[in-house]
């Protein structure tokens, strides 16, 4: 990919952050971010205890993750708080490799004996796995690293007084309830601080603090025996409290709620074929489902076959450099580096430094998402010998495996916006925000909805629609994309909880994109059970 594109993403996201918070504090953001804490000595001692036990019992490789996860949730409806919760989870997970087989064990008993027991249990699991072993695990090389990192934030959301959070949400609800017919309002905050130390038998020792915030708002209007809801697309981010404030929820809630009321009067869509314009607030999820998941290498080689599914982007030898995913204007970047993105880290859960690479270049599929054990499986096809750094575990009690980095649609060279795309469209539908979504287990057939739908006639918005869903086949859909926005229209959405794996694990991932137009897409009327 061209350096200009990569630099652009970094520049725009940091500028946006600076505008959002700089205005508020009138200080340089860089100077105000919190320092990265290091691991305390007791944690490193416990990790080494487990590492030594694992090596002593025959592990050729072992890694130990000690994590302390603090989660807070505040939920409200109308004029009341429906839940305030705060949780802390602390423990240790050991992964061992014996004769090419993995074992993993985890415990919350944080003593030397507890650490040793977990290490020995991981060895038992590694040895038991030899009974079913057609292929030995081999790890791509990684340079041992030591260091610390923290999500750049000015204000740790867990340290913000609860009064401030409750006041923000209740003021938001109050503003929404001013709208006629709006009877129900829900708003909430999900806040996370994750402190994670990774120590490996190869000499890596890193401690990272990840901070994420997930605000939410939904309003329901009731009238004449019907109800309609509207969820605002408040992107979760790897950011501090300053991001939540920048959303100005109390100031915007009345406008958001009025969309729910407006939906009561909207025209039910006539099913058929339309040109579709997707705003970034809707398109990010379509990217997640139809590009993010199918380009996970574990899906392509069948390791997710029993759960999340396989992929149409398989087998790798027939896809890399050959699959025409979309038109030449389509460039898809993977990274764990974008500022304020949910999957941003300095190192992944195998100590691999965060990477930025292209998944699709000028419409052609180029590379998958990989971990250390996966990189070697396709290096002859890609020429890439390193892991792309996609290893992640949701908690100390879960084994790390391949998880999605940020996957983003890069802007066009020409800086046009959604209004320009609307103006160029004769008959179409514009969709904002995510609605219901569903996609098959090889990622071909999908059906997505949204929150607000607008009919376009002769280059103009002609009115609001409801009951809209779009259904398509992934390759045909992306190949029908003929217009995309430029850098000014780039926006980053994201999923706070994305599930994969058995036992199922959740990760957080962002997707940046620009508005885009897709030709002749099938539109369903969901009220008519079409």
């Amino acid at each position, binding site marked *: 990919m061209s350096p200009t594109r990569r630099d652009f993403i970094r520049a725009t996201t940091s500028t946006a952050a600076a505008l959002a918070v700089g205005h508020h504090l009138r200080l340089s953001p860089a100077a105000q971010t919190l320092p990265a804490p290091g691991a305390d000595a007791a944690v490193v001692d416990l990790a080494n205890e487990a590492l030594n036990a694992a090596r002593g*019992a025959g592990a050729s490789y072992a890694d130990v993750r000690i994590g302390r996860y603090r989660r807070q949730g505040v939920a409200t409806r109308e004029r009341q708080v429906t839940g305030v919760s705060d949780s802390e989870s602390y423990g240790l997970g050991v992964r061992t490799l014996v004769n090419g087989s993995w074992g993993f064990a985890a415990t919350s008993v944080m003593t030397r004996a507890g650490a040793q027991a977990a290490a020995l249990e991981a060895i*038992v699991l590694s040895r038991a796995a030899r*009974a*079913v072993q057609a292929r030995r695990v081999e790890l791509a090389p990684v340079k041992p690293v030591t260091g610390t990192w923290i999500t750049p934030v000015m204000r740790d959301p867990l340290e913000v007084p609860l009064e401030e959070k409750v006041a923000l949400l209740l003021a938001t609800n109050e503003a929404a309830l001013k709208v006629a017919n709006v009877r129900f309002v829900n708003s909430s905050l999900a806040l996370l601080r994750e402190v994670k130390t990774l120590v490996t038998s190869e000499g890596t020792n890193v401690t990272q603090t990840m901070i994420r915030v997930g605000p939410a708002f939904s309003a329901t209007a009731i009238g004449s025996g019907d109800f309609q809801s509207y969820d605002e697309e408040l992107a979760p981010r790897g950011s501090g409290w300053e991001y939540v404030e920048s959303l100005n929820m109390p100031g915007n809630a009345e406008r958001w709620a009025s969309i729910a009321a407006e939906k009561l009067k909207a025209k039910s869509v006539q099913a058929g074929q339309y040109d579709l314009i997707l705003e970034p607030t809707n398109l990010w999820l379509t990217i997640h489902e139809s590009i993010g998941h199918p380009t996970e290498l574990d899906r392509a080689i069948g390791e997710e076959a*029993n759960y999340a599914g396989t992929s149409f982007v398989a087998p790798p030898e027939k896809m890399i450099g050959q699959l025409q995913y979309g038109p030449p204007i389509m460039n898809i970047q993977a990274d764990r580096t974008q500022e304020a993105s949910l999957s941003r880290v300095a190192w992944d859960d195998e100590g691999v430094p965060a990477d930025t690479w292209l998944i699709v270049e000028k419409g052609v599929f180029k590379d998958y998402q990989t971990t250390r054990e996966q990189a070697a499986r396709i290096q002859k096809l890609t020429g890439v010998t390193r892991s792309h750094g996609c290893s992640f575990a949701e908690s100390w009690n879960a*084994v790390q495996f391949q998880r999605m980095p940020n996957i983003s649609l890069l802007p066009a060279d020409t800086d046009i916006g959604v209004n320009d795309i609307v103006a160029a469209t004769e008959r179409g539908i514009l969709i904002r925000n995510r609605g219901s979504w569903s996609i*098959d*287990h090889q990622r071909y057939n999908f059906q997505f909805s949204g929150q607000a739908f607008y009919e376009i006639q002769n280059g103009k918005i002609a009115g609001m629609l409801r009951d809209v869903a779009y*259904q398509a086949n992934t390759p045909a859909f992306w190949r029908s994309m003929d217009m995309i926005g430029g850098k000014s229209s780039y926006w980053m959405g994201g999923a706070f909880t994305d599930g994969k794996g058995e036992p199922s694990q959740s990760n957080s991932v962002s997707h940046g994109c620009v508005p885009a137009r897709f030709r002749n897409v099938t539109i369903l009327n969901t009220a008519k059970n079409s």
Partner: protein
Amino acid sequence: MAQPQRPTLSSSQLLTRDQAKTLADRVLALSTAEQTRVVIVSTWSGNTRFADASITTSGGVTDTTLTVTVAIGRRQASSSTNVLDEAALKRTVELAIQLARLSPEDPELLPELGPQTYQTVNAFVESTADLDPEARASAARRTITAATAAGKTAGQIFTAGFLEANARATAVATSNGLFAYHRSTDADYSVTARTPDGTGSGWARAGARDWSAIDAASIGRIAAQKAVASRKPQPIEPGSYTAVLEPQAVNDLIPLLANALAARSADEGRSPFSKPDGGNRIGEKVADERVTLYSDPTDRGLLGAPFDAQGLPIGRTVWIEKGVLKNLAYTRFWAQKQGKAPTGNALAGGLALSGGTKSTEEIIAGCARGILVTHFFYIRSLDPRTVLQTGLTRDGTFLIENGKITRSLKNFRWNESPLLMLNRLEDIGRPEPTEAGRLMPALRVRDFNFTSLSDAV
């Protein structure tokens, strides 16, 4: 090289009743709040995952989480931790109190429950709690061997599967003298088999409280047979077809009614069980007259929890009896407001759909023309007013003609409501165990709405 001991992390580390009581009492003693509730969940989990004839990950995890919920006046908050030393417990209680003080008053807050009487449910089975890594690897081996043999006409079958055993002890205690303790186990095993030509995929699953009720070889055999039979699927025009849903497919849909069964949503006009002019539809016919849907923790096929996270006793509740809506799920607050008895959440005591006696094979045999569905995938709500869902068929979709499976079909996307579907029943089978705490029958449904084709295999 030191040989590891026998399982160093195991279900034997679950808190006993006495240990849970002692821990709960310590926490209650630390609290200065007017009302305090402690919920302790102590867990062991062992899992093994495989793909392409290799175990890809396997794990063993033990943990104990304690949640403290306190109320000061009408202000309530909770805080939880898995760090159980005195300092951490104190910090957790103090944090909950601090959060409660800062929380606005909750007009719907009720006092904590006092001592309750619970039904005895023996849901803890040693064979599940003792399922160690070697036993799980051996089960995986039996599955792969059976799948390989059953699928050999199609070449080298690819299998991927996941086996998990869980043991859990749950305790609830309140400052009003309530103490409840319950132990349970569950095992769940599912396998996907794929043919080497990439055109066939089959799946099978079993779940139970008791691992010994699960036949690892049979799961592999069924998955492989389905994979072989589903090769080279043909498209047929999407539309309304009679569908035969296997019990696992029914298990994917029926629990989606749980949210709709909330009494409050119904009374507030936000549910399919709301009357258009206010109130709910209890007493009205909402499904085919053969349909009975119930929860009952003491049912031998369910063995659900006899209490919920507030310590509320969970008993038998019949939601739909012979097609008539009999009950909705009342929280303690909504029950008091409406003058009803609280039921707890609709899934708390397990969920069973009953009404027939036939096997899945008999339901197929009675079908003149229809589509057989193994299971569903990626189900999402489209419209809460009708419980309309969308999703896809997966791992074995077949055409039935004159009571026999005649060919493999391409997968479909469908848009259908589990509630409306229960009004279009042609036949209902006998309740079969589908997972721990669930009994679901095969169903034959008229005019199931298949909306588009999927190329996914």
